[in-house]
């Protein structure tokens, strides 16, 4: 009985489904959705609880500069992105970006002047939309190419050679996405789970709504959880030997009346000292460089605990009662409200990997 049972959940029913679909599609589907789906869409959150990775590679100053053009890199860094997660895009083709740009610009024009029809592909006189692939961003094979959306305004009386002003940009990306999840999706879907936008709110919602209508996807704000923020603090501190983090600044909110905000800035050397003291000795000593790269969540927790107890010793205030709202170093900043700033292009991949993971965790199925 027990043996028979375990094979129920494991046996892929697909062969049976195909055979008999014509007859009992509906029941088969519902059958699959409760048993088969667990194996097919391996990460159905309810059935197999998905968690944030408890161990990840330490970010290394990446050779991203060799792979990605400096123009693209310049667009990614130095400014703050507002983050969203996106469900997989249906029938999205990287080869169609030009046509998408035309449609999107017509859509924006039509939405902005309600009640006026707009020819798709006709000359738009207010905005110029362009979509482009950021070559060289992908890390794993399953990752879809990153797409950059830019909207430039066209001033009415601008001279021909005057540079167009960028009013909005957006980023759809997937870096080191969970390959199991990505491969479980049918071919029609392109998974670019992380969407970052910067610029006018109004344009953000127009772009989102065009994507929703065109690729049948949904957008929702992506908040950076307490745990992820702690990860950021540790990951950035870990980079200190490679590039100076200058400071480790954390913003805590404590639930007292009136609410108390604590800005906790740590000297980079002290932070690094603390960090190296909490690293697992076994891994630190590890012969292979590969092993030494891995950071465990335990270490992160110890690091945070160290920071908190230090604070307690001085101010008699236990930060673990509060919530971490913001972490920033010279390498970047992350806010719990879902804002990220990557100040150095060297660690773009590491940051986006963590955020991709957060976004994939939010997928409804």
């Amino acid at each position, binding site marked *: 009985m027990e043996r028979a049972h375990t094979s129920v959940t494991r046996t892929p029913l697909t062969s049976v489904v195909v055979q008999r679909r014509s007859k*009992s*599609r509906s029941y088969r589907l519902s059958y699959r959705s409760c048993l088969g789906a667990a194996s097919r869409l391996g990460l159905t*959150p309810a059935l197999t609880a998905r968690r944030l990775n408890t161990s990840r590679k330490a970010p290394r100053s990446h050779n991203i500069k060799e792979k990605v053009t400096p123009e693209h890199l310049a667009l990614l860094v130095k400014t703050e992105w507002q983050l969203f997660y996106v469900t997989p895009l249906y029938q999205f083709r990287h080869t*169609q970006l030009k*046509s998408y740009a035309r449609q999107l610009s017509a859509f924006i024009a039509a939405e902005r002047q*309600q009640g006026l029809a*707009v020819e798709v592909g006709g000359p738009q006189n207010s905005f110029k939309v362009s979509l482009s692939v950021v070559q060289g961003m992908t890390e794993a094979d399953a990752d879809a190419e990153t797409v950059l959306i830019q909207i430039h305004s066209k001033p009415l009386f601008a001279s021909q050679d005057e540079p167009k002003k960028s009013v909005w940009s957006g980023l759809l990306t997937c870096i080191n996405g969970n390959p199991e999840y990505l491969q479980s999706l049918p071919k029609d879907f392109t998974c670019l789970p992380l969407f970052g936008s910067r610029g006018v709110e109004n344009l953000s919602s127009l772009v989102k709504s065009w994507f929703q209508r065109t690729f049948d996807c949904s957008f929702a704000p992506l908040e950076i959880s307490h745990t992820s923020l702690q990860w950021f603090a540790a990951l950035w501190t870990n980079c200190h030997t490679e590039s100076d983090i200058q400071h480790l600044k954390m913003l805590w909110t404590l639930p007292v009346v009136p609410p108390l905000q604590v800005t906790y800035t740590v000297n980079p050397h002290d932070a690094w000292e603390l960090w190296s003291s909490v690293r697992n000795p076994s891994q630190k000593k590890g012969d292979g460089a590969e092993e030494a790269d891995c950071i465990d969540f335990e270490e992160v927790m110890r690091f945070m605990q160290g920071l908190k107890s230090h604070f307690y010793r001085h101010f008699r205030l236990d930060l673990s009662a509060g919530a971490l709202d913001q972490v920033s170093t010279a390498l970047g900043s992350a806010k719990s409200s879902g804002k990220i700033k990557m100040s150095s292009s060297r660690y773009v991949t590491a940051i986006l990997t963590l955020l991709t993971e957060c976004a994939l965790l939010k997928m409804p199925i």
Partner: protein
Amino acid sequence: MAATLSPSDLDQSSQSGHSVSSRSSNRSLRVAEKERRKNEAEDPFVLALKYFSDVEAGTPVIGNDELDRNLVLVEKVAYSRGLSPEAISVMLEFAMSLRMGSSPCVRVLKCLIPATVVPQEAVVRAVVWLSVGKIPISTQVLFIKWVLTVFDMIDAKDQLRSIYGFIFSFVTEENLCPFICHLLYLLTRKESVRVFRVRKLLELQSKLGRQPFLLHLLSLYKVFCPELVTLSIPSRMRSGFKNHISPWKSALIAVQKRNGLQVAPSVGLTVKEKTGSRKRKHCQLELPALSSVVNKEAQAERSSSRRVVPLVHIHSFPQLLENIHRIELPAQMGSLLGSSLALQYLDCVQEESALLRLNFWLGCALHEEFLCSDGGAVQNSEEALQFLKDLLAAQHFLQEGFSSSDTFLYKFLNIWDGSLLRPQVLGLLSNIPVVPSSQMGRLLFEPLTQIFFTSSLFFKCGLMESLNNMLLKWLTWHSVYALEDDLDISLNSHTSINITLSGFKDSVMELVHFVGRLASVGLQLEGCHSLLLSFVLDFYETVCDTFLKFGLPLVVMPPPGVFYPALLATDPASVDRLAYIMHRYKVNLTSAKSQEKLTEQAFHISRQTFREFNHYVVVMVNCLWNSKMFQPGVDVQLGEELLLRSKVPQHWCRFDLIHHPAFMNYAVDFHQRCWPDRKDMDLSSIKHSKPWSWYLEYLFTQGFDGLRDFVQSNISRQVIAGDGQGDSQPR
């Protein structure tokens, strides 16, 4: 006065159509009388038509009595019976060709009331005349309005569609434009949408501004060719084309009524109104509107082989059936939930990615609204309620849940307070499909247990009902599925069926046991509340029939925590229902046993189940029948001392059918009827064999059918004939 009405007057008064028609009908009456007096041999109407078809161009109008007489005749026929297709052809040709100038033209157009259909050729010819003749612009407008009014009565539209381009050329005429746009709207097919037409309309738009008629035509173009044009219609313009109060409408309806024809469907084609404007910024809970796919290049290889019909174009069920093999799914799958027609189609959608799209959207909407920290649903309970209602209606229609709403629910149950949108959430809960038994504890039982024990009686009842529905759906699903397996068993490897069946049995068993635990403790907590007991017994009415009703070889007995509260309940209905349930258990068990012997199939009901059942039957019979309560071996045991201390006389018979608190009242009533003269009541006297069987009969006539079934199936006849002692059991 009417007789001297000059044609020029007529032309002027064409703006106020009603007065003319009333006057002319007045006059037509008088002329008609004159006509009848003349008593002509030939049909005057035919003659009149002949006049109009033969009359030479340039015949004077003023002072032409013949014209007047014939026109009156035609009008009379038109307003009473309507004109035949031939008559329409003749009159339309006469009017539009302006053979007698433009003055009679208006009058003729106004009386063109078709009796049956309008011949397409006539309309096409008339449209051609539009460009040839020098018809005044107001008359041209009148003509197009007439076409719009009778559009549904035109016998065919193919030729009209083939001159689409010709009709389109009139849009530049400023006064005609609104009506031409409406006509084009009615005639547009996918192939008529061309870039140059789009550009022309856009050019007009830049000249005329935002005109609803242009916008509606363009929005139809967008439906067919979203890659050419895009627009967003502001809410105030969404009402569709203006429904002109045309001069023909009332007359047309009157004629159609008289002819017993069905009234033509309303002409004004309205653009479907979207749900009211929303104030909220993030609109996760809005069903997207149906719209067609823009980027067809991607699927070109598929659509090239066959012409596809976007779901937006389907407006009726027959249309759906006609096109079911080539329907194109909408751009956003979520939009299917909004229309019942689309739901019909969703039921046949086989594409995996389509269902996945739907689930992504639904899951995201539910997550954002109910699981996010800002508690959108709490603030917008009105919308959340509507959304869940729509979702439930869709699930109800499809008779299955969506996997994303299930996964959502597994999470939501952990944070649910048990009162927010209770009926809807419980409804969703009952739609959850079979869950593997290993997962049930974590996904369902843990959160449900917590809410169950901390909520009110009504929640407990609601949850019981919902779990009962869930079980019913699982069993129904199984019975359909199992039936199919029997049908094409050759197609499948036996193993997979057996495995799935045992897994399914495990899940059902888990669920039943779980409800048993909930019910036992719940009844205790609520002091065996009869309302809760009733919901619990509902559940066991489903459970006791799993084998016979649903073909599932599984019988699970209720726990003592349910059995005894029902047996010792103070309301007779509960005892009766328990008796019925026990009776059904017996029927199921015996038939399972005989089938087992017959087919020697691998399944068997465990001996433990039979033992439990027999035990319960013995207890029931002993308690209700044999007056042997509190005997050793019964689950309810009280110390002898305690019983003595309670000073209840003859405590062993306190729960028989006579003294049972639920039936005492019947026993007293029976006693009074049986021995009306007796002063002192001795209920024990019913125990004697004769009055006992009478008493049973009496109880059965009171509607205790369950009790009757139980007695008949579990207590043999001789026993009744005997002293009411002993019992018989199955096996």
